[in-house]
């Protein structure tokens, strides 16, 4: 589990602002937290100049941050290796996904899941290697499901994936499966996030696979794959979700969304919106569901999977 301490990070400025006399706040694109520079001094003045220039030139800086105090301890220009790590960990603007409000009661499942018919997302254009048929999607699903910690192993990957603990950690499970889909099978893999972020909406799921209790979330995420299906001479591409925590096979996106609005679990069960993001998106960084963090080297992913490997969902 992440510990708050001084951290060195390559970050880019979103804004520099002075909410009141004598106070300058620094907002980074990669951080939700607002930072300030500690009391004035030669080093602080140098840092302030570097940060202002970085904002003007839209260039990243290497900063030592103290999240506990919300302070920037030092600022330096990033080296070539820092820039490479920064580039890998960032979702470029042209790869940002699509977030849409959804009304499950009015969703037409006969058309909703058909890619490029009703379901259009510009990021689909960035990767063309879609899964050729449902049998291949099922094979990928089964491989991921077989890595479930509750099965006891032996596992093909490490750490195992705690599908049995659906209460938390969906972001880490999704990212690990995304790694499998893109590196072992070499198919396109986006992520789909669902959100309950309007009014009293709550994602509510009956965890039938893990004892039948109800589980509540404000968001959920799983790998989204595009699967071609033939109907005679006609071929359509469907958006399907790989989520062994909830299902025993790949399911249509509409099925996945509907399962999170179980009114038997909560009268407020509803999906407010969904967001199709590149596979690099790890977790949301704001409540509106439009900004996402990344985990390019899978360090957060593996830490969370390890932490949750022995936990269970229902009492």
């Amino acid at each position, binding site marked *: *589990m*992440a*510990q*708050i301490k001084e951290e060195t990070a390559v970050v880019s400025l979103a804004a520099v602002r002075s909410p009141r006399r004598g106070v300058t706040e620094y907002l980074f694109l990669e*951080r*939700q*937290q*607002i930072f300030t520079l500690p009391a004035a001094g030669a080093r602080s003045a140098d840092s302030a100049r570097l940060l202002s220039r970085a904002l003007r030139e839209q260039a990243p800086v290497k900063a030592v941050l103290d*999240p*506990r*105090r*919300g302070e920037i301890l030092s600022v330096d220009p990033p080296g070539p290796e820092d820039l490479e790590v920064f580039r890998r960990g960032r979702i470029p603007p042209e790869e940002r996904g699509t977030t849409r409000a959804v009304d499950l009661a009015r969703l037409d499942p006969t058309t909703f899941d058909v890619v490029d018919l009703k379901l259009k997302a510009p990021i689909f254009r960035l990767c063309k290697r879609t899964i050729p048929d449902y049998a291949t999607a099922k094979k990928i699903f089964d491989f991921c499901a077989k890595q479930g910690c509750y099965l006891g192993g032996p596992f093909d990957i490490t750490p195992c994936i705690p599908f049995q603990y659906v*209460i*938390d950690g*969906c*972001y880490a499970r999704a990212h690990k499966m995304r790694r499998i889909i893109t590196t072992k099978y070499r198919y396109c893999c986006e992520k789909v996030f669902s959100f309950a*972020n309007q009014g*009293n909406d*709550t*994602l509510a799921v009956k965890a039938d696979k893990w004892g039948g209790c109800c589980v*509540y*979330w*404000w*968001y*959920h*995420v799983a790998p989204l794959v595009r699967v071609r299906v033939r109907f005679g001479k006609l071929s359509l591409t469907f958006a399907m979700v790989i989520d062994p925590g909830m299902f025993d096979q790949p399911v249509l996106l509409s099925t996945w969304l509907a399962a999170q609005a179980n009114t038997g679990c909560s009268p407020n069960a509803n999906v407010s919106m969904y967001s199709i993001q590149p596979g690099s998106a790890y*977790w*949301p*960084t*704001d*409540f509106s569901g439009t900004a996402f963090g990344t985990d390019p080297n899978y360090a957060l992913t593996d830490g969370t999977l390890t932490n949750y490997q022995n*936990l269970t969902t229902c009492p």
Partner: protein
Amino acid sequence: MPVDGPDDRRRDLTPAHVRERADVVEVMFAESPRIFRLSRSHADFDRLSSALRASLAAGRAVRVTLTVPHGGDIDDVQVP
């Protein structure tokens, strides 16, 4: 007051949203899909609720102590 390190009961979490309910305040954190709860009957409810709202406004993480390991009920909030 010294702050212990994270463990199964303590997590460093950034409030993303706070929502009023009859008996509890529901708290959503950026680092977890769970909906956490702070009971209105908690002896220190006002302080904890204020700390969560201040951290939400500042976009700053807090050290959250849960009533049980990996639980969903908030027992304490410490602001750095």
